[in-house]
Each structure stands twice: as C-alpha cells, then as structure tokens.
C-alpha cells in the first residue's frame, strides 16, 4: 500500500495559503514532494478565482473597512469568502495516482470521495456538478483545481459553522440579496455541519473523516509530515510574488463589462425574478439568482438550476434549461421551463 503525506498548515493569511498551493504543486510536479493531503484554514479573506477581477467580483470598500484580506487563487471558479469557521482540504497528486487525465472525471472522483467523508457523520452528502458537494440541495462544500504538467492540485472548502451573510457582504451581488429575507434564502441554500448534526464536531474529527475517505478511495494510507526544504524554498519564492498588489490585480476588468441585470415577469405560475451577472464581452451568463413569488417542489430545484446556469454561454441557455427540467420530476404549478428562459433573456436584454 502506498503512503501519502498529510499536512495541516493551520490558520494562515490567504497569501501564504496560495503561495503554498503554488509551491506544493510545483514540488509535486518536479518529484520533490510525495502525493499529499493538506488541511488549511484562513484568516478572514475574500478570494478571487484565478481569472476573476477584484473590481468585478468584490466590494472592495467593505473588505477594507472590515479588515478582510483580498487575494487571488491559483485555482479556478468564483469569488468566495473564507474565515476560521470553515476549513479547506487539498490533494496534490500526479496523474499516475489517478489512472486518468480527464479533468472532469478527476474532479468528480475526488468530490465523491470527499462527500463520502462528510456522509460518514450520518448525513447524505453528494457531489453536485459541476463542482459542489451538497446535502439535501444545500451546498456544504465548493471545489476547484489547478494543474501543471502531470501534477494537479484539487481543493475544496467545508462549512462547519459558517454564516453565509459574511460572504454576501463581501461579494458584488444585487442589493436586494442583502435584505433579511434574501439573506435567509441564501442561508437556506448552504448548510453547515453544525446545522446538520446539532453540534459543531471537533475540527480534528472532521479532518479525520475526510482523510479516511480519501485513503479508502485511493487505496493509500496517510502519514503526517511537514514541508521539506525544497517546498519551503519554493514557498518563499511564491510568497514574494503572490503577497503583492500586482498578483491580486493580475486580471483587471471593468465592472461595466460584467453588469448585474435584472428582470421580473408575472407568469400564470407566479412572479418570477432573475438577476443575471452577464459577461458582455464573452456573451456568457456568469451567475443567475432567481427569486419571486413562486412555488417549486422540490425546493432545491431552484438552487440546482442556478448551479447549472453558472458560467454558461448565452446561446446554450435554452437547451441547458430544457435539459435540466427534462431530467427531473418538478412540481411548479403552471410555471414552465420556458418561463425561466424568458426571464433570464429579459434581464440580459435589459443591458443591451
């Protein structure tokens, strides 16, 4: 049986966490590191995906006023907020550990294993494409990755006793998403281990469950370790680059290229509203928020649909929405899939 390393780097600034991302990925690629599971935590920070722009994604004034660090990840995906009430897990692997180079399949395999670790607490955690882990339609973990040559880093979060309101206040989202009701709705769409279990389990226990699940999935055992000399050197070099305004603002795009466009329409099945963060340059829907006076059962359907519409080319909207509803049993009175399409298009058109 192969032995992989497990490292816990504790609570750190985001710059240090991402410098470690780069250092450990580089070291794994060069054969200077074994395959590794790392646990990490963050001081309060608003974190951009690699290709995102701070101006487009974050409320910079709010972050500055509240002492929230802003940093850019080396991995993909969307902006998020991390603090001590969540933790992160990361795998640094070689493609030969996986027997596949298909990135979608690798992400699924890792997420499904992480979900089994969470499920070992007696809850039903599942992988939700494209990159989330959820329990009963509520997100408990978001994930993303980076690769270089045959080495890869895949990372995820895990909510233990997190209040999503803190995240909403850092992100550039429609103002009405900060109303009491909207914040409650947002809370309903994520879930903490504490909510599910009635108590916050000790972090070491949660990490142990995740570690056991990865050990079982990959048929390996884990041995605790620290950073070797090569990794420490690479870490210092990476930190000198990442802990700078140049890295944080590596991608700069004006807010006007990513407006948040809104529309609402009264259908026979109720009032449906959509707010769409729309990438004008690439004609892509970056994110959609549905609200309104509608009845949809199961309730998770709306959150699932929002997830399915993330980062979607506008010309794929119709087929994606119809394909989404074709695959499931949903009761929404007289509201139809085409009503969702119509209100999203109306929002996008309002910005043209």
């Amino acid at each position: 049986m192969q032995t992989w390393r497990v490292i816990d780097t504790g609570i750190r600034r985001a710059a240090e966490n991402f410098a470690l991302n780069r250092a450990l990925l580089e070291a794994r690629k060069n054969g200077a590191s074994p395959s590794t599971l790392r646990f990490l935590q963050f001081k309060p920070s608003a974190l951009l995906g690699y290709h995102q722009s701070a101006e487009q994604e974050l409320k910079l004034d709010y972050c500055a006023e509240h002492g929230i660090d802003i940093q850019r990840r080396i991995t993909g995906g969307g902006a998020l907020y991390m603090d001590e009430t969540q933790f992160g897990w990361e795998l640094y692997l070689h493609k030969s550990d996986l027997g596949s180079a298909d990135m979608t399949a690798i992400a699924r395999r890792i997420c499904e294993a992480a979900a089994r670790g969470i499920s070992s607490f007696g809850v039903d955690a599942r992988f939700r494409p494209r990159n989330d882990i959820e329990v009963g339609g509520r997100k408990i973990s978001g994930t993303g990755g980076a690769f270089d040559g045959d080495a890869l880093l895949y990372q995820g979060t895990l909510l233990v006793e997190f209040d999503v309101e803190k995240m909403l206040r850092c992100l550039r989202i429609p103002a009405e998403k900060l109303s009491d009701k909207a914040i409650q709705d947002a809370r309903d769409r994520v879930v903490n281990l504490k909510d599910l279990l009635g108590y916050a389990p000790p972090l070491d226990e949660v990490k142990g469950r995740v570690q056991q699940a990865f050990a079982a999935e990959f048929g390996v055992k884990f041995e605790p370790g620290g950073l070797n000399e090569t990794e420490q050197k690479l870490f210092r070099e990476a930190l000198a680059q990442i802990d700078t305004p140049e890295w944080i603002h590596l991608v700069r795009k004006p807010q006007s290229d990513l407006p948040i466009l809104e529309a609402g329409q009264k259908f026979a099945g109720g009032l449906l509203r959509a707010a769409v963060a729309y990438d004008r340059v690439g004609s892509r829907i970056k994110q959609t928020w549905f609200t309104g006076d509608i009845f949809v059962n199961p309730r998770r359907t709306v959150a699932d649909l929002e997830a399915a519409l993330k980062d979607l080319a506008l010309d794929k909207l119709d087929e994606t929405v119809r394909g989404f509803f074709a695959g499931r049993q949903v009761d929404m009175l007289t509201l139809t899939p085409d009503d969702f399409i119509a209100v999203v298009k109306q929002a996008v058109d309002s910005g043209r």
Partner: protein
Amino acid sequence: MATVRNCNLPDDLYYSVENNVWARLEADGTLTVGMTAYACNLAGEVVAFTPKKVGKEIEQNKSVATVESGKWVGPVKAPVTGEIIATNDAVAAKPGTINADPYGAGWLVKMKPSDWAGQSGSLVTGAAIAAAFEAKMNADGFAGC
C-alpha cells in the same frame, strides 16, 4: 490528417506531445500555437483564457497562456523558446472557440522562435504523430475524443 482515438491531429503541424500543444510554421518563419483537440477533450469547455503579454520572451516548456475549464486552471506551454508577437483577442472574448476550432479560429498565440532549427527536433510531425499520441493516450488512460 492523423486521427488517433478519434482525435484529429493534422499532420502538417508540429506537436509538443508532452505539453499537448501544436505549432504551425508560417511562411515568414513565425509560429502559430494552440491546444490539440486531445487537450481540449481532456479539459472540457474552456471558459477563460489569459495569454502572456506580447513582447514577452518565453522559454520552451514555460507558460504562454493560462486556461480555465470546469474550475481547473492550468498553463499552455511553449513548444519552443520564442517571443510572443500576437495573442488571440477573439478567443479571450469567447474561449469556447478553442474547443470548437482548436486548429483554426481557436489558436492562442503567435511566436517568433529564437532557435527553430535547434529546437524543432524535439517536436513531432507527419508520420510520427500517430504513434506518439497513441503512447500518450495510453499513458493517460484515455478512451477517445
């Protein structure tokens, strides 16, 4: 046109098999560089593309651009050393073009190679393409495009 496990790999191009990129030698001695159809298939739909800046000298096997697909971020690596002389703005605006037309409209950067005669021997072209990619796909456990 070579086809390996249903992936198109035009045989007039030069390939860095390890980096899964292609290069076309243009009449003026410059190179056009992009991802192979195989690389596109492994990545899934590309949703973001950020090239290095025009004028920058990039060493062989170092990153000329960064792409993102399905929340994975990774580098596209230079097949040979050279200066970036152009980047594809149309692809930056619509990265899905890379998947739709990897050898045409989906090109990524143009380079002026600094030592084509010395370095092009590390690339494969023509009749050698099929066996080289067959071996890579085998190592990657890849079923087909």
